[in-house]
């Protein structure tokens, strides 16, 4: 529930077109970043991160799965994370996981999570350290995304509902069931994000904005 996998045939045409246009412009913008060898490495990292996200998006944990979008954003920056998440969504759509016409909506939603994860991590990494920053950033992003997904699914205009017969008819307990499930998945994803970022901050400091986490001070050592 931290992300949408809207399938084909659900959204109205105007929303499909608008989201594809916005997504296309954003993707083209990201592809123009950098030059030469740096650009080649940047794109290969995006490809690998998108593959990791594809695996995460396709492995079920019960009826849900992780997204790892904030983690991709923290590793690749807002632009790279956005593109990785967008491409991961497109690739899972090709095997029926989310619609091919809904690539724009699904990709923008997940891509914005990656971008927000990157920005929030940069904000909190200084005062809270790698683990604290990653945890707070991923937690904030995923809770907001879950709330956004719930609200969107309650309010989205559905394709055959052309007579203006919109949502909010659902069962109230249904919302709580979905919210509780989303919270459980969010906790699992935050835990994984923290542990991966902590590991990477020790073995490949260049991948983690802010570099190596300072080692814990030994007992009795001067501050």
């Amino acid at each position, binding site marked *: 529930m931290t992300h949408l996998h809207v399938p*084909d045939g659900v959204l109205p045409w105007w929303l499909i077109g608008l989201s594809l246009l916005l997504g296309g412009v954003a993707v083209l913008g990201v*592809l123009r970043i950098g030059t030469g060898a740096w650009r080649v490495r940047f*794109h290969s990292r995006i490809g*690998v991160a998108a593959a990791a996200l594809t695996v995460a998006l396709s492995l079920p944990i019960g009826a849900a799965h992780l997204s790892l979008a904030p983690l991709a954003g923290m590793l690749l920056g807002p632009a790279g994370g956005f593109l990785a998440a967008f491409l991961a969504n497109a690739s899972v759509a090709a095997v*029926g996981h989310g619609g091919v*016409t809904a690539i724009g909506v699904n990709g923008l939603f997940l891509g914005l999570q990656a971008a927000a994860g990157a920005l929030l991590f940069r904000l909190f990494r200084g005062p809270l350290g790698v683990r604290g920053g990653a945890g707070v950033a991923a937690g904030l992003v995923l809770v907001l995304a879950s709330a956004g997904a719930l609200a969107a*699914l309650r309010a989205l205009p559905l394709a055959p509902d052309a007579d203006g017969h919109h949502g909010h008819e*659902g069962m109230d307990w249904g919302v709580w069931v979905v919210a509780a499930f989303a919270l459980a998945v969010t906790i699992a994803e935050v835990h994984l994000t923290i542990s991966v970022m902590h590991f*990477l901050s020790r073995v490949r400091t260049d991948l983690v904005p802010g570099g190596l986490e300072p080692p814990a001070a030994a007992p009795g050592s001067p501050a």
Partner: protein
Amino acid sequence: MIDEELDRIDSLAATGTSPVHRASPLSRVLAAALTVAAILVAEEHRPIAVVAALLLVEATIAWAGPIRLLLAAFTPLPFFIVLALLRLGSDGENAEMMSLLLFRAGASAMALVLLLSTTTFVDVLRVLGPLLPRDLAATLAVLYRSLFILLRHAGHVGEVAWTRGVFPVQGPIVGGLLLHAFERMENVACVMHVRGVDLPDPDRADAFRPRPLDLLPLARGVAALALSLASLRP
């Protein structure tokens, strides 16, 4: 599991010799696009069911596992369970609309899985290549290759972790997997860049060359769209 499913789809597409496989990649991609359009245009269950039946017939001709294709139609089910919890009225209001949406989503998933079961990812990229920026096509190629690297390596690491009694979803294991794939793909990309090859330029002309067997997937796509349009209420 995704690795087995991806392996199966990839193997079917790469090794198949059926009449559908021998049609040009362009015709198969066009047929998939026409079929998805037909499904989205349909306003009733019946034309969608007929389109799904057409897809199953083609999957049988292509030896692409019609039963598995039928199972692929249930991929969007979790989304609809959530949607039903949020939107379905307690008196069953919206139920008919939901079932139509489920039909559409399931049939569309079948069309896409059939496309990838009969057409390799490289061929799909060849067809879409003229529409995509060069860098995007290169990144998609890296994505596809590293997907298999990650899945293979994850399988090995998972087995080792279980035999040592370690829970396999932990930072060092997932982070190590990412590092392994990052380093491998970066090396490949940098070597190709130094040699002046930023993207292995595939032989696009072959993907667009018309063949007699193109009629098979194209006829399915056109029939699906015609059926859907004919079923529309005036």
